[in-house]
């Protein structure tokens, strides 16, 4: 990371600047203000802390922005905004259009669909456990905070196409929102919109899967799941006859997301040759060795979040495992941890896959199913608040 510029210097076309200049300046001004700590709760506003909040210790430390503490009012406001099509320019799409709770807040499509019905660039990412893992958001890490991230789909002309000033005006005219914003932040403005949405996303915590209960001693894995867990946690070592699925090298032990240090949570996992690599993280860092790296996603609820990969190229977990087992494609930025992961040959330059046996593949998939958290998928606190409410 020391060789990288921490300040982004992205190359965009003059045309793009011209078209997007106004919106970009507005977003820049918004976040410069936030970055300077200029926005805090208005005096007299006293929102309530989240009652009974408790997150798993083993998930690790997380950070909450000083100007956006987790509060009940912000969560309820963010939840309502998340499900409200008022956030789109033509009031046709909400965040939930691409992030459905029963799919762990994904959409079941290979590529997300924009407002005109056309496919977008990337697969819709799960929104579970965003407090942990890489704190750069989107597949290419282009957002440095959730407050920033939540506004991008709103402003994107191919997605929700909603100017923020128009959204503020709409929300101000709504019979419900002004009081909710007042209670949460003491004001209704662009920054409060982003903060409320970010709070809702932060509280989408999935921690009641069978694996979580196993970690607490409250559940026992089947023999197949336990074999899968052991393979998941092991990097193969032919010399010591240690067989491994190599998963933990990128997906951490407890959160099962990418690592949060620096850019460690981004990887080229051998999908394409150099000629076909997409920029990925390099589009954000403008750093050549990041070319082809994408965010390592959380595996929480992975059984319900297909299709898989940044472009949704694999329909099933079996397809994913087939890729890792014998379909690794060499490229200049291929993860060295994948390059050397082979259960048959101890040659760090020769591995083209894990070469696990079928029962081991099946075991890893069985373990991945223990990451499904039905409590999370059904939690009414995360559901559409408009259901049953007259609109």
């Amino acid at each position, binding site marked *: 990371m020391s060789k990288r510029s921490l*300040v*982004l*210097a*992205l*190359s*965009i076309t003059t*045309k*793009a*600047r011209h078209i*997007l200049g106004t*919106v*970009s300046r507005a*977003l*820049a001004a918004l*976040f*410069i203000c*936030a*970055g300077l700590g200029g926005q805090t709760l208005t005096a007299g506003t006293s929102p309530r802390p*989240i009652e009974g*909040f*408790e*997150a*798993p*210790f*083993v*998930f690790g*430390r*997380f950070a*909450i*922005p*000083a100007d956006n*503490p987790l509060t009940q009012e912000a969560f309820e406001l963010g939840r309502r905004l998340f499900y409200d099509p008022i956030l789109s320019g033509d009031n046709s799409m909400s965040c939930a259009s691409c992030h459905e709770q029963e799919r762990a807040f994904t959409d079941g499509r290979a590529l997300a669909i*924009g407002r005109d019905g056309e496919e*977008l*660039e990337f697969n819709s990412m799960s929104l579970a456990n965003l*407090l942990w893992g890489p*704190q*750069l958001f*989107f597949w290419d*890490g*282009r*957002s*440095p*905070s959730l407050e*920033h991230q939540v506004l*991008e789909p709103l*402003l*994107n*002309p*191919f997605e929700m196409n909603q100017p923020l000033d128009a959204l503020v005006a709409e929300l101000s005219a709504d019979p419900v929102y002004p009081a909710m914003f007042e209670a949460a932040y003491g004001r209704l403005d662009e920054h409060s919109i982003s903060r409320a949405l970010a709070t809702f996303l932060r509280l989408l915590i999935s921690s009641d899967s069978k694996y979580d209960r196993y*970690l*607490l*001693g409250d*559940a*026992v894995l089947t023999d197949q799941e336990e074999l899968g867990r052991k393979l998941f946690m092991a990097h193969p070592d032919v010399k010591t006859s240690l067989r491994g699925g190599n998963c933990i090298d990128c997906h951490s032990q407890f959160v099962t997301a990418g690592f*949060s*240090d*620096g850019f460690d949570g981004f990887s080229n996992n051998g999908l394409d040759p150099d000629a076909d690599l997409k920029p990925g993280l390099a*589009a*954000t860092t403008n750093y050549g060795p990041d070319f082809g790296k994408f965010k390592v996603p959380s595996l929480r609820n992975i059984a319900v979040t297909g299709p898989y990969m940044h472009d949704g190229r694999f329909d099933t977990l079996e397809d994913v495992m087939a890729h890792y087992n014998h379909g690794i494609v060499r490229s200049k930025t291929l993860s060295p941890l994948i390059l050397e992961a082979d259960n048959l040959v101890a040659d760090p330059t020769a591995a083209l896959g894990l070469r696990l046996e079928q029962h081991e593949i099946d075991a890893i998939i069985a373990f991945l199913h223990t990451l499904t958290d039905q409590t999370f998928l059904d939690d009414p606190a995360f559901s559409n608040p408009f259901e049953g409410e007259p609109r």
Partner: protein
Amino acid sequence: MTKYLWMAAISLPVALSFSVVPSAAQNSSVREESQGMVLLRGLPTLETSHSVAIVELDPESENFGAILSEVDQPDMAEPFHHLYYSPNGRLYTTGLDPECSLAEIGLARDASGAPTVTGFDCLDTGGQMVGEDIMWTMSNGTEYMFVTFMGGLGGDDGGSVGVFDTQTNEVVKIIEARKSQVGDGEPYIMYPHGISAFEDRMVVSSTIHPDLATGVGNSVTIIDLNTLEPIQTITVEAEKPIGFPSSPVEVLFARPSIHPDIEPAVLVNTMFGFETWSIPYDASSKSFGEAEVIYSGAANGTAVPLEFYGTEDELFISHALPGVVKRYDISKLPELVSSGPDIVADIGAHHMIFFSSASGRELIAIQNNLLNLGNAADNDPTDVDFIAGVNAHTITVHDLATGERLGTIDFKGTYNKGVENVEALFGSGFVHHH
């Protein structure tokens, strides 16, 4: 304009307003590598209760020495003793109180992300008392939690090794072999304390009866992990510098998984013999060779050697008197080849952890209290009897490379408590006793 270019374009404002680094790095207050779990002993004469706490140990932090979270144990006569993380991240502690000789400690995170101690559950030990050390290892393909209970099921020659289910915490087996009940020359288990294992062999030490008066051990016992039965007892006793039996305390099965150059051997510290012993092990024949002294405290001006801890490169052994930690080249084990000058801590030098400061300096924190067990009839085992002479009630923090002392936390002076044990918030690393 392609959709991809749009995404790049909308990122431009970020460049103007943020340095793009992960948010955990944006806020130094979220750093917790330097936070330690500590077990604090209430001091009756100072009217404080035992507790479990999280303490900031980075001398560079403005919170250095501050208790960040704490749960009291007001109803327990004796404190918890020794913290261990399971491979699945569950936190356990042994306990000196017969009512709670083994417990699981609850940890969680509050709405700011900070770790908090939520409480503890005393576990059913099947009557085994005075828990000491814990380790997780395999027996016949199944992983178990093994706990040494220095008091065992009671009696003058008690002591047991409890075998627990790693998921349910239920007792699977109590390994017990009383010296008074086995035949002459047969292996026995008495006052077990230290524990370590390699392949299918486990070793436990025989230290001292919990009342410090009834009996003192001078041996280690080998347990066959295939049968969970003791198979050999080996005496480790030579000099008696204070006239007591040697009282082996911590043991470490030096093995290739610690460093590939290591020839397997059992290392043993003898609390009252002031020595470190080595017992060679032939893995092919599964036989132990003749025990020999490889370090003499009497000859080197140290006493009461206690713990083994390791980093990738070095083995550290604490000596309660005069309060130093000696360091050795770990690749040379079982020989003790010095890797640097002693780290001068305080009297009672005992447990330790390794971590880094906010600026990246590599540190070692040393807990300086021998205490553990005293005579309750004397009112205050930590302040009244001879044990008080080897209790500094401090944690000292040192530069790992030079040994320079960078800070001292005086728990008695600041909190009216002693400090029983320290463990890193996320565990101490790969050797850690075992």
